[in-house]
Each structure stands twice: as C-alpha cells, then as structure tokens.
C-alpha cells in the first residue's frame, strides 16, 4: 500500500509535546540573536530591518566588552588549569590509596558539593580579607610603593586575580576530584607497575603513562570546571570591584542595570559572545553530564 503512514496517537502527542517544549526553550534566545545583528536593536523582540556586525566589532574596538572578555578568559582559564593539575594529583591519590581516610575524604567531597556558595560567601569574604591583608604586607615589603596597587591587582585576594582564581578553583575542585578519581579507578595499575619495573622515574611515569592514560578524565574535569567557573556570578560580584578587573558576567550585568543609556545591540552581542564558549564546552561535555549532576552515583 502506497501512502502516508498514519501516526499513532502516542506519536502525535510526543511530537506535539516536543515541539511545544522546543518553542519554550528557544523563544527567549530569539530576541538576543536578532538584537545582536540589528542596527536599531531595542529591548524588545522585533524583526531587524537590516543586518550589521557593528555590535560585535564594537566589543573589541570601542568599549570595555573586550577587556571583560579577556579578563574572564584569563581568570577562568587559570582556575581551570589549577583544578586540572590539583584535581589530577588528588584524584590519582584518591584512586590508588587504601588508607583509612579514603572513605571520609570521598564522603566529605559529596557533602561539600552540596553546600550552597551563597551560604559560604560571608565567612569566605572574611577569610579573603585576612588573606588580602597578609598578602598586602608581603607585597609592600618586596615591591616599590608606586607599583603596590598594580601588584595587588594580580596577587591580591580582595579585588585581585589570585584570590578569585583560587576561590573559583576551590568551588569546582570537588567535582573534578570525583571525576578524575572515578576515571583512574577504571585504568589498571599494571601500566604504572610495568613502567616502574622498567626503571622509569616518577616524572617519566607521570608524563609517559599517567597523563596520557588519564587524558579523557582530565579533559572532562577541565571542561566542567570551565563551564562552572565561566558562568559563575556570585564570586566575581563579591570579590572584584575595580572596573579594569571586571569579568564579563558582572560587566554585562552592571551595564544592563544602567538605565537610559543601555545599548541593547551591543549588550546582546556581548551576551552572545559570553554564551558561546559555554555552549561549545557544554556540547563537548555532554556525555559527562550525568556524572557532573550526580557526583558519580550509579543510577
């Protein structure tokens, strides 16, 4: 029989539901996508009469957007590197050890992951103030007075990059430890032992055997760290105040709060630029997502 296959009722409702969900999920993006290329962009959805790339060009030529973007890239990139290295070492140790502290440590990681950062922010602020005072004294003793301020912008803990990088790392570290530990659990010890028998030293074992073996696990941890830190809003909001150190999420947020003078086309372009790395990383990280959500539970 030739003809159109008849859809069952279940199929019709499945397609109907999925289409409605698709519209619900994508509709909010329509405005930002159109506004970012619309020469006369407004806060509201309208079909552009022309197309322009000016908003995107302006990010890197005229305004602070480019600086915010690079600030974010530097701090989040550094935090990701810290997490991959520290998490790689720790994850390996957690996988290989049989010491008494193994279980308590792993349970503690799960509990730590559940603590909301908003509940930690006040004491964290205090800790950072103290650390900043100590670092300030150290910097003043080694750096000439006229460059203290710029030095503190790099190594300071409040309104400085080192503190922000370490805080972002600490927040993402529990998940990374978990993922990397789980990954090492799946890689046999035999390779390391063989290398040891062949007389390889520690450095060679790490470089030739462990890092190549663990690369997928380290990559997954790195991707998820990047996504988490890139999207974080609370930490840069609390710990960065100088305009020249501002990260993209806060710059975008503050610019958007400024009534009357909002350039919607420009901000939309900035928002699109901001979400692109996150979306790309998310695409790569998709198959690790279950682990990231549940912390390694076998469902």
């Amino acid at each position, binding site marked *: 029989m030739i003809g159109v296959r008849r859809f069952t009722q279940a199929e019709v409702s499945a*397609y109907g539901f999925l289409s409605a969900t698709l519209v619900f999920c994508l509709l909010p993006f329509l*405005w930002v996508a159109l506004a970012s290329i619309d020469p006369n962009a407004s806060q509201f959805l309208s079909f552009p009469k022309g197309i322009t790339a000016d908003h995107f060009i302006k990010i890197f030529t005229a305004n602070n957007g480019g600086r915010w973007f690079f600030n974010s890239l530097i701090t989040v990139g550094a935090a990701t590197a810290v997490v991959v290295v520290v998490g790689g070492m720790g994850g390996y140790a957690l996988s290989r050890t049989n010491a008494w502290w193994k279980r308590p440590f792993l349970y503690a990681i799960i509990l730590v992951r559940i603590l909301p950062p908003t509940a930690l922010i006040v004491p964290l602020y205090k800790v950072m103030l103290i650390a900043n005072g100590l670092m300030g004294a150290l910097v003043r003793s080694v750096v000439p007075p006229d460059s203290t301020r710029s030095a503190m912008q790099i190594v300071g803990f409040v309104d400085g990059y080192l503190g922000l990088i370490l805080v972002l790392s600490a927040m993402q570290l529990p998940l990374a430890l978990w993922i990397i530990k789980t990954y090492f659990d799946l890689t046999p010890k035999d390779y390391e032992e063989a290398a040891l028998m062949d007389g390889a030293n520690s450095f060679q074992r790490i470089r030739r055997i462990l890092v190549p073996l663990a690369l997928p696990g380290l990559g997954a941890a790195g991707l998820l760290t990047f996504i988490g830190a890139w999207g974080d809003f609370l930490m840069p909001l609390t710990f960065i105040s100088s305009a020249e150190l501002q990260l993209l999420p806060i710059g975008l947020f503050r610019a958007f709060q400024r009534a009357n003078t909002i350039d919607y086309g420009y901000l939309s372009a900035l928002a699109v630029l901001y979400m692109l790395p996150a979306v790309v990383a998310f695409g790569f990280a998709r198959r690790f997502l279950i682990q990231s959500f549940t912390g390694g539970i076998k*469902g």
Partner: protein
Amino acid sequence: MTYETRMAWQNRMLLVPAFVLLACFILIPAGAAIFISFTNDALNGFAAAHPQFVGLKNYVRLFSDQGFWNSLLVTLVFVFGSSVVGQFVLGLAAALALSRPIALKPVFNAAILLPNAVPEVVAGFIWISMLAGGKYSTLSRIVGLFGFAPQNWLDFAPLLMIIVVNTWRGIAFAMILMTSGLSAVPAEVYEAARMDGATARQIFWRITLPLLRPTIFLYMLVSTAGTIAIFGLIYTLTRGGPGGATEIIGIYIYNQSFSAYQLGYGSAVAVIVLGASIAIGAIYVRVLKVQV
C-alpha cells in the same frame, strides 16, 4: 623505607594541594560561619572594627524576623514549583517522548539542553526582554493574541515568573537523568506488560514510574540542593524583589550581608542553610548507598 610506605606518603603528598584549597576556601569558611553567627560583625561602622559576641541574639532575631520566614517560604515554593514540579514533569515527559524512535531527535535534544548551557546572567538578560516592559514584552504580546491584558510580569507574578524561568533552565537536567533511568529498564518488562494487555497509561503508572523511583529520588535530592543554591539567575532578574517576593534564602543572605551590612546576622541564616544542606547530603549518601 619500603615501597608501600613510600607510596602511602606519595598519595598523601599528592592530596595536599587539593586539601589545602578545600580547607581554606570551603571548610574553614563553613566553620567560621558558625563563629561569626554568634557575633554582631558588620561590613562597616563600629561593629566592623570591634565585633563582639552577642550569644544567640542573631538566632533569636532570626526566628522573629518576618523577612527570614518569608524567605523560607519563597524558597520552598520556588524549589517545589521549579524543580519538583516544573523541571521534573517536563523533563520526564521529554525523556519518555525521546525514548521512542522520533525524527529530529538531536534537534529537540539540543533545544532542551541550550537553556542549561548558557550562563545565568545571559538567562536573566534574555528573560527580562520576555517579561519586563509591559505591552512590549514578548510574553505580553503572546498572551495578547488570546485577548489577555499585557502585564509587567516581574511585578505582576514575580515568584511564578522565576519558577517558569528556572523550569526553562533545568528541564535538561531532569531529562538527562530520567533518560538514563529509563534506559536501565529492560525492554522485556514492557513487552510482558503489553502481552498481558496493559494500556499505555497502566504501563506508565504501574511499571515505568515505580521502576524509576530510585532515579526520581536521586533527582529530587540533587535538584533540591541545586535549586537552593541558585543565585545569579534570580539576582539578575529581580534581586529578590519586588518587596522580597522572590528573595530565596541565598539572595536573602546576600542582601542581609552585603546590602544591609549585617555579617553576623547573615551568617546565622547561612548556618541554618548549611545545616539543611548537610542534612540533604547525609540523606543522599545514606539512602543511595554511594559507592566510594
């Protein structure tokens, strides 16, 4: 030194950096929260330089503070509305729909995942265009087609709106978990049920849902903890307003500490939240018998 002791020391050394990071920026602050909550510490003024012990004063104040109880209620409604109902129902429905052979599956999948992938600020930014601005907002124009009056939605129904936005953002999470739960159910179970003449509705209520129960429980715990921790999404949309209508507990802590400058009182609220979170975590570890 034997090989074993050397390895034991090596493992300990390798964990030191991770432990130091976690201790400095998570464990010590968590402990310090308890300490600060017994003081009148402030962000500025006299108390900032000379914080003093005030005993249980912050906690006493907390229990008689309308703002705190309001915030708890808002948190409860927000968690229930967005993660227990909104994300779960839509995520389960999406997982069920996508579990059958369907055309354009990757497109539907990607569309549902996209809201989860964007940073919170971008989510807030684009939803303001959807909701604010009276008759110009996208939502007002849509409901206008059906003859409803335009509204400034974030003033008209603020809590409902942040529930909708968070549902939008989190369908993917529920869907991914439910998909993994569904794939663990053997196909023979469904076949046997159909042989016995069960209807689709019976299969869903009698087989799918009971077999998904562990996954659903896991989802509820993780997503409750995650939803309580939300900050940027609500802060960019409403900052907790209007009049505390969307001030979930995390926003309340932030506003009390950094807008009202009362670090001691903010810490008392934080201690309550930390306690509740640890309880959720303990249930999670216990009931799900996490393998470590």
